[in-house]
């Protein structure tokens, strides 16, 4: 078997990292790239799924969970980063730990031009809001990167984002081949 034929189940690796970090509340606005991870979290009896109407709700939820002694994660797409910016004041002002996993749109191989502006701005916007940004481009890095991001967030009381690149999750094609 060639190395290329060994499929790395990176959503399972991320779920294992979240479980090891004792994540108990999983806030989400769905994205195709997060679908398998959300299924795994939904099936985990120690994780409470909290679907949101808008990504900024996940910032407040993370703060409240930590006040109550629980750890949370926010799963979202890069377009949701823009909805979070003002709420992120809560994270920095109070030194709340905050972990978010962001599936990228609007970059490598993007078909929909309307995704490009926020995809392009997601990482820099988070950094301007004093969130530490990690990026995952290869399936083999996903689990360890999320584990490290979780430790950084919850041990150091910081906001940490992991960007899951389109090289990893695949670009949505809308049935177009060119």
């Amino acid at each position, binding site marked *: 078997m060639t190395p290329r034929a060994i499929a790395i189940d990176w959503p399972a690796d991320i779920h294992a990292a979240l479980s090891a970090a004792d994540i108990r509340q999983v806030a989400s606005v769905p994205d195709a790239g997060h679908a398998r991870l959300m299924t795994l979290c939904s099936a985990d009896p120690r994780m409470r799924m909290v679907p949101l109407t808008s990504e900024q709700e996940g910032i407040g939820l993370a703060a409240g969970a930590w006040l*109550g002694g629980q750890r949370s994660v926010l799963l979202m797409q890069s377009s949701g980063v823009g909805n979070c910016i003002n709420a992120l004041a809560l994270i920095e002002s109070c030194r709340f730990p905050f972990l978010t996993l962001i599936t990228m749109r609007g970059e490598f191989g993007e078909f929909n031009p309307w995704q490009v502006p926020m995809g392009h701005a997601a990482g820099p916007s988070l950094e301007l809001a004093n969130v530490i940004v990690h990026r995952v481009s290869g399936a083999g890095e996903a689990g360890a990167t999320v584990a490290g991001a979780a430790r950084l967030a919850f041990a150091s009381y910081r906001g940490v984002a992991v960007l899951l690149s389109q090289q990893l999750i695949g670009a949505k094609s809308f049935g177009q081949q060119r």
Partner: protein
Amino acid sequence: MTTVALDRRAVAGALLAQRGDLLVVAGLGAPAWDATAAGDHPLNFPLWGAMGSAAMVGLGLALAQPLHPVLVLTGDGEMLMGLGSLATIAVQRPPNLAIVVLDNERYGETGMQPTHTAHGVDLAAVAAACGFAASTTIRTMTEVAALGATLRDGRGPRFAQVKIAADNPPLVLPPRDGGLLKDRFRAALLGPDAALI
């Protein structure tokens, strides 16, 4: 019957007078000053920003601490900015969470400009339509007292829109340092070892 809009400090005072183990999240602006006027307390978490987030902080806290009653005390402008969170909370159905909106139909911190509730937007109806277990509009102190008696009954999520007078009572400010507010809350709730987690 003529109704007189309620005094916001009297409403907050009545809800917090026998607070016991009540965990309180106060939305930014006047509701945070009202909660503080009733007595600064380590189990108050007043927001100084992140407008629209108060109800969701309450949800995260209520899910993490299902045996504690949680009260979110916020304003109509703050609630309108987080309207979607009412749908999110209703779906989660936390039985220990109550959201009380002190509704003066104004943005009090910015010059008393009218909010949408001044034009008839009915927040209690929104909460009911989302699926809150109970939702009510309150115009008398008798009703406030009855609401206060339900905060620990575990039959939420509850929503109450309390119509209050559009005035500006004297500022009573809580601490502004968010790290202090967070750490003293966690120490009071989780014990002194919370800082070591």
